[in-house]
């Protein structure tokens, strides 16, 4: 009887500890920062290749805010969803010229000018599709703090990549980010701030 009671108390104590640990873990997960801090600087001048195969210098983006997103054209889900959302939010701001939307491939081996061009044309609203040599892309990825990694082999490989959209004001200064799992309302508020700055 006494043994049974001891076992029971030990079980209760173990359950309490487990619950406590679970709570702490969930709490920490909720608090973990997922966004780069605002004071971190991204961007800088670059030269890539546009959908006609011509050099595209970042100076052409000057004078207007821009949202830049890195992806690849074999990406059927998250990439078009992100670009469609950006064009939708831009329409909600009332003008296709409120800010530029830039799509840069992280898969230059498969995505030439034609590929990024037809991908960028899909959204019924101007999107600047850019590619480049593997070296050019690697440099721009570094400037913008973008991670990407090829997964799998053969022709059907996929590319894990940063799916956060980076926002720059009209003088090319980094402003903030939009994460794919962020709601439309906060994203729109950021874009409004960006275009009013």
């Amino acid at each position, binding site marked *: 009887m006494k043994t049974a009671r001891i076992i029971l108390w030990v079980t209760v104590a173990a359950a309490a500890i487990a619950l406590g640990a679970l709570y702490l873990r969930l709490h920490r997960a909720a608090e973990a920062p997922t966004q780069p801090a605002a004071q971190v600087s991204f961007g800088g001048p670059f030269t890539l290749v546009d959908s006609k195969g011509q050099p595209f210098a970042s100076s052409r983006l000057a004078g207007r805010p821009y949202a830049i997103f890195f992806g690849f054209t*074999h990406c059927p*889900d998250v990439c078009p969803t992100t670009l*469609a959302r950006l064009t939708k939010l831009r329409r909600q701001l009332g003008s296709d010229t409120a800010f530029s939307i830039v799509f840069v491939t992280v898969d230059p081996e498969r995505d030439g000018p034609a590929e990024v061009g037809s991908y960028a044309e899909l959204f019924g609203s101007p999107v600047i599709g850019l590619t480049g040599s593997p070296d050019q892309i690697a440099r721009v990825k570094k400037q913008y703090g973008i991670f990407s990694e090829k*997964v799998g082999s053969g022709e059907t490989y*996929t590319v894990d990549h940063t799916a956060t959209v980076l926002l720059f004001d009209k003088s090319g200064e980094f402003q903030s980010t939009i994460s794919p799992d962020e709601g439309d309302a906060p994203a729109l508020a950021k874009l409004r701030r960006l275009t009013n700055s």
Partner: protein
Amino acid sequence: MASLRAIAPAMTTRIAMAALAASLAACSAPAGPKISARDGWARETGGPMAAAYVTVENQGGADQLTSVRSSIGTATLHESSMAGGVMRMRPIDPREGLVVPSNGKLVLAPGGAHVMIGGLKHSLRAGDRFKLTLLFAKARPQKVDITVQPAAGQ
């Protein structure tokens, strides 16, 4: 003889328990799945891959969506996930599949589990229609209509 008499009641108990266990198992045996699929759509394509989405409803016991087929290309189940701002896309292992909960639904939607279709014979344009066949671990295959939607968000 004495030992036999001692064993006999134990045997009876064991048989009775086995019978009880069997009847309990019969009672709690899950009902078969009752699957239907609706709201199938795909996005217009500007690249070589298409994504299609569908809602699978189940009014019976749990099942798994294990694979997909389409006449327009090579269809596979994939899942996108986000961790620390990085997007990952992985094929779903057909041995595990995607769970269709009992009396619940499995929703394939942008940013999560989806059907990826490669090897497209031609690009998908808004208004195009095609069929997708969903294969399950238990339920019979289901055909669902897919309508291609404009890529520009509404």
